[in-house]
């Protein structure tokens, strides 16, 4: 496979052709999404299926973050509906949310015993450290794919500092960052 440095805006765009392919793709994101579904959503939608470009993905993720509800759940509703209407939205939602719920309920029954085992605890701790890297690495990919202009980099960095370092409430961060980002982008695009 080619590396991500080709100009992905010119990459060919595909669309899901059958309900089955749509469902299986969202199911994959849901069932492999250990430590967060978003890295898997990016991988499946952008790299594997080529249903979106890197830039489209990050712009849609931004919309999903300011709408209420879990980001990836919102994303599955929007994409399912965009490609295949209400049935598509329900199929995507089932794959990414309801099937994993059944899995987590099965896990919950045995969780207490597994959590006692030191071996399992060590494996989980190490995998959690790697899962954090999965999200950080995905952020790097999004950054390279979206190539924000300088004022965008400032906004992104400010949001990061406010949320991760200052621990400001997200709603307040968004209430300031969203209008500011739109104003800056509006000026820059004139």
């Amino acid at each position, binding site marked *: 496979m080619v590396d991500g440095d080709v100009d992905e805006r010119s990459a060919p765009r595909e669309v899901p052709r059958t309900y089955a392919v749509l469902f299986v793709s969202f199911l994959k994101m849901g069932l492999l999404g250990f430590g967060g579904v978003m890295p898997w959503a990016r991988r499946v939608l952008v790299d594997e299926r080529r249903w979106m470009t890197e830039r489209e993905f990050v712009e849609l993720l931004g919309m999903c973050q*300011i709408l209420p509800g879990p980001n990836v759940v919102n994303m599955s509703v929007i994409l399912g509906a965009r490609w295949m209407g209400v049935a598509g939205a329900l199929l995507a939602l089932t794959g990414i*949310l309801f099937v994993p719920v059944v899995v987590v309920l099965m896990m919950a029954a045995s969780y207490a015993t597994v959590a006692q085992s030191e071996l399992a605890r060590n494996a*989980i701790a190490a995998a*959690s450290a790697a899962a954090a890297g999965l999200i950080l690495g995905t952020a790097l990919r999004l950054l390279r794919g979206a190539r924000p202009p300088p004022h965008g980099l400032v906004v992104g960095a400010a949001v990061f500092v406010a949320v991760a370092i200052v621990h400001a409430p997200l709603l307040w961060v968004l209430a300031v960052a969203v209008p500011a980002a739109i104003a800056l982008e509006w000026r820059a695009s004139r």
Partner: protein
Amino acid sequence: MTAPPDVLLEIAWRFGSLSLLAVGGINALLPEFHRVVVDLKGWMTSAEFADLFALAQLAPGPNAMVVSLLGWKVAGIAGAFVATIAACGPSSLLCYFAMSRWERMQSSRPRAVIQRALAPIAIGLVLASGFTLARAADRSVAALALTVAATLAIGFTRVNPVWVLALAALVGISGLA
């Protein structure tokens, strides 16, 4: 396990009334869910709540599934599905109607500007969540090394993340991290 209908109804309206406030996802509302299920209703202890949260992080699927587990704890399988649908249903419906209007709009300048403006915010938030998880997970130098290695592998190669996670779990089992 069969749950009395009034408990299911109560889960439905308590969780459902929070759905449209979940800007930034369910995790942004965890203190509120804690207040309802532990302090207000006494459906579980604070320690049980924390265990369910940890399990939701650990399990495959969206981290929002913590609400499914809360529902399960209160009212079994039916509770899990009622809680999931109540917490995600209203926000999903809003998303569906808002975005189908949005996507029907002609590709106007305001639409393009707003989408471009939100992209760096999205990236900043993803970075922040990765950073927060790393701070919680990296309690040793070896764990930090795993985070850095995974970041580089995912950021700069096309390696399948399954192998990255599996390798890290093996390192953990071997006692190195």
